[in-house]
């Protein structure tokens, strides 16, 4: 028998009204503006842009406001918004060696051209709550300035590769990279698809996998070869022009992890590389991504795949928090009929078991 169930419209409307009121909080407290979120919750905005896979700080801030600060919900909102827009073009690959540097450090080489530049970092803070932030500051904090030279900041892995001890980048093929927003993911996936997946992947998930690899669930003892943060100019070649033009600037975080490799039948001992790249300021995510990228390359280096971080299907299939959240939360949808079916089944089994006894 099929029983159509209707109802709940009023309850749903009222639940949404209640949500709106609770989102706003106490009306006696001034409402947050998008500009405030964008300017002062910058790392939350950057995470939403990065995993929402849409470089738009205003929309990420709006999504955070609408989602009451729930990052995964905000990411979902951005992903949904992007599906409403046509795609005009793909950019030329950005050149991170030409980044306007905001931070650039290497844990492997102390003295490198361009130097170690800390930038705005939480590192070396004492992680003590700053109670002065509970009051409005009398004046805005001011950063120090020092003369800036135009010293080039080449990528560490490139300048230190002349001995051939570090794996070189594969030749820059102009092959069209796979796009998992266009075609469903199939396995084995190329490194292009793995990097796209990890770049949009959940920070917590990617972090935990990287951590598992570091702790021994995978053969990965990486060094942070370089971490850099800064702006790159994004170029496209519009059909009507036929030459590249800059359309804007994107702030990116890039990480190169370097892992010792003792060699295989076909490859000499050398340092191998894992790569992380994200929109915005997402250092922890970029570092974790680089470790997981290297873990997933196990097959290239004849390494035995034994652990989750080395398992492409496991990692890529579970990294997306919008998909994961959707599948988890669908359990809230009415399953009355399924459950009725199972109830009948369990009752029958139990009756049968009692008869036997």
């Amino acid at each position, binding site marked *: 028998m099929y029983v159509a169930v209707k109802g709940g419209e009023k309850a749903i409307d009222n639940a949404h009204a209640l949500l709106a009121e609770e989102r706003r909080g106490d009306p006696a407290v001034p409402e947050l503006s998008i500009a405030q979120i964008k300017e002062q919750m910058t790392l939350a905005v950057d995470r939403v842009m990065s995993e929402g896979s849409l470089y738009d700080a205003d929309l990420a801030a709006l999504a955070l406001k609408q989602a009451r600060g729930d990052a995964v919900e905000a990411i979902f909102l951005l992903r949904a918004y992007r599906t409403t827009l046509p795609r005009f073009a793909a950019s030329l*690959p950005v050149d991170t060696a030409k980044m306007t540097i905001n931070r650039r450090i290497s844990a492997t080489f102390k003295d490198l051209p361009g130097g170690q530049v800390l930038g705005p970092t939480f590192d070396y803070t004492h992680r003590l709550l700053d109670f002065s932030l509970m009051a409005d500051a009398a004046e805005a904090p001011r950063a120090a300035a020092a003369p800036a030279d135009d010293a080039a900041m080449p990528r560490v892995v490139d300048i230190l590769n002349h001995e051939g001890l570090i794996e070189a980048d594969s030749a820059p093929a102009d092959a069209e990279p796979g796009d998992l927003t266009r075609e469903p993911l199939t396995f084995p996936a190329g490194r292009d698809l793995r990097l796209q997946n990890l770049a949009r992947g959940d920070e917590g998930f990617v972090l935990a996998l990287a951590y598992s690899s570091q702790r021994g669930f995978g053969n990965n003892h990486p060094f942070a070869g370089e971490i850099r943060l800064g702006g790159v100019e994004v170029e496209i070649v519009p059909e009507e022009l036929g030459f590249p*033009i800059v359309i804007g600037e994107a702030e990116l975080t890039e990480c190169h992890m370097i892992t010792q490799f003792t060699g295989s039948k076909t490859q000499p001992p050398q340092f191998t590389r894992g790569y992380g790249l994200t929109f915005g300021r997402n250092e922890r995510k970029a570092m974790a991504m680089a470790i997981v990228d290297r873990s997933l390359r196990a097959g290239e280096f004849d390494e035995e795949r034994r652990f989750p971080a080395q398992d492409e299907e496991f990692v890529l299939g579970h990294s997306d928090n919008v998909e994961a959240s959707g599948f988890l939360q669908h359990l809230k949808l009415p399953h009355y009929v399924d459950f009725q079916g199972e109830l009948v089944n369990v009752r029958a089994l139990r009756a049968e078991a009692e008869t036997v006894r």
Partner: protein
Amino acid sequence: MTRCTASDDAANAAARQGWMRLFALSDAAALEAALPGGLADEVRVLRAPEVGLVMVRGRTGGGGAPFNLGEMPVARCSVALADGTVGHAYVAGRDRAKARAAAILDALMQRPEARAELERTLIAPLSAALAARRQAAAEKTAATRVDFFTMVRGD
């Protein structure tokens, strides 16, 4: 879409790349303020301002094969002036008015007489503002450069 004219040689293209970049990296308000008055009758819209996406690509390892990093909203617009000069704009973000202003300015910059004026009133100040913004950021970053020193141990 309208193709560029044959006179659009490499040097012209390079100059055009320069101003189009500057428009994309500058505030919308400055571009709109630079539009000459009384232009409305002359501007014919070839492609109305619209917002879409650009897939931003990186390279594996920074220098290897390309991969898709994520998308960026972009506004675009194409216009023609009465003499047939065509202007295009692609500017990151969702600001249709900025795209329209940039497309009109792109067309005007291709007219020698308008260009001379705009070089002085628009390009120079926009260029200076971009350089100043980058210089200020670079100086703050430079102040965080680590100066290592070696502790000499007396044995």
